[in-house]
């Protein structure tokens, strides 16, 4: 008997499973934050979560709306200044995983959060890079979670805000002191990983009830599938309960004027 769950829930649960208790994770706001806290509340109770606002090893009871909500600070081991966060903790090599979202991603896992269109005449102006450009290069590896659509999964991003493997898949080759880059992309349809040689993103696992055609339709390039294509394990009742509780607490917390 199968549980009922949404594609979003499938994505969050799958993204959460990528984290383990021995990881030190630099967490982006939004989907990565949801996944990282779900991991902490389920199978990875000792995962270390770090937000760029300076909160080291934080354990928020509700998801933060912003990267610097009071909840993050109050539940942190300690809170440091932003220069220290970026210099000592990220650039200093203490982050095992950077967990990022994005507005656009391309076949080489480059991320665009700057704009759609031309830089000087943007069709849509997005928020910009924030912490991502250096999280992507200074963390030992990068996980990405993002909803799958043709608008998001494009052959070439309009602007490389944050490098995956560059326009040709070779941007990290022979660069000293750089992390491995994106090792997994988790969407609401599937799991993608870079091909070990070309670095092009390849679908390695389809979520339950998702077809190859669903992924092809939602991807802006000729997406490849791994020879050994898995089916992602569906969420457990416990995972869904904890995720739903977390989201309910979060919505209640953010819905009243303080």
């Amino acid at each position: 008997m199968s549980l009922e769950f949404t594609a979003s829930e499938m994505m969050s649960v799958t993204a959460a499973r990528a984290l383990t208790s021995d990881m030190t994770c630099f967490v982006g706001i939004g989907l990565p934050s949801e996944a990282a806290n779900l991991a902490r509340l389920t199978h990875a109770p000792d995962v270390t979560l770090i937000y760029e606002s300076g909160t080291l090893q934080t354990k928020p009871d509700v998801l933060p709306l912003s990267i610097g909500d009071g909840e993050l600070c109050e539940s942190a081991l300690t809170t440091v200044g932003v220069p220290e966060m970026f210099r000592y903790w990220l650039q200093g090599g203490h982050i095992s995983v950077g967990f990022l979202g994005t507005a656009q991603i391309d076949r080489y896992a480059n991320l665009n959060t700057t704009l759609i269109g031309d830089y000087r005449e943007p069709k849509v102006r997005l928020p910009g890079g924030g912490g991502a450009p250096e999280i992507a290069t200074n963390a030992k590896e990068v996980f990405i979670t993002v909803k799958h659509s043709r608008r998001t999964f494009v052959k070439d991003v309009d602007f490389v805000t944050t490098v995956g493997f560059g326009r040709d898949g070779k941007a990290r080759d022979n660069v000293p002191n750089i992390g491995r880059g994106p090792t997994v992309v988790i969407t609401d349809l599937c799991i993608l990983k870079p091909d070990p040689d070309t670095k092009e993103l390849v679908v390695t696992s389809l979520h339950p009830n998702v077809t190859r055609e669903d992924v092809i339709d939602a991807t802006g390039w000729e997406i490849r599938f791994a020879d050994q294509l898995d089916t992602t394990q569906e969420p457990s009742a416990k995972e869904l309960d904890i995720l739903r509780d977390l989201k309910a607490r979060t919505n209640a917390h953010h819905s009243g004027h303080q």
Partner: protein
Amino acid sequence: MAEFLSLKEAVSRYISNGDTVCMEGFTHLIPFAAGHEIIRQEKRDLTLIRMTPDLVYDQMIGAGCARKLIFSWGGNPGVGSLHRLRDAVEKGWPNKLEILEHSHAAMACAYEAGAAGLPLAVLRGYVGSDLPKVNDQIKFIECPFTGERLAAVPSVRPDVAVIHAQRADRKGNVLIEGIIGIQKEVVLAAKRSIVTVEEVVDDLGASVNACVLPSWAVTAIAEAPKGASPSYALGYYDRDNVFYKEWDGIARDRDTFQNWLKDNVFEKGAA
């Protein structure tokens, strides 16, 4: 030593048209009261610097205070776009806004270098990013010891820093607690500084290694209770997340925005 002034007097005396102004506070302790006073005093042609220009800069840009914006992430956190910022960049309303953008790491290092009195910051940054193509202030240097290529950005050394803090003592020493962001750095990097505080107290109650700005490192202090709202002040009040969400509707439309500004800023004077 820091002078105690009204917010009105502090802004009038220390911020001039054309100044480079940094209003900092990383989500926490954002100096909204000071931003509103700048709007009321109709300061113009400011170069505004801030890592995360959120609502306070959206309001100031919409009110016509800014000529240029230097930033690294411009959005309404967890909600969406800054509509007044976008309207200025995309349509030139109420005036054209020039932008120059960095990454957080580069701006954090640029503030750190500014506080350290250096002309540049060096970081392992911008590798593979297109940002250096659109920001001519990003350069690269070679390490004389290892040959490694590293990014260099100019330090931030503004005319005026504006921050909000929990409290000052009667001598003008200032305590900042919680998410301290980049506030110490911006005050030390600036030629002049205005610090608004929740309250002035006899004893700061600071722990031994607390983030304290000595009175002699601050230009002016103005008491401004709830001066960070709708942002928050740890130990005083929480973030007004609902207002952050409502702002999306207010700012989306020029008329709605102008009405909001009239009712909530122009017709409400600072103490």
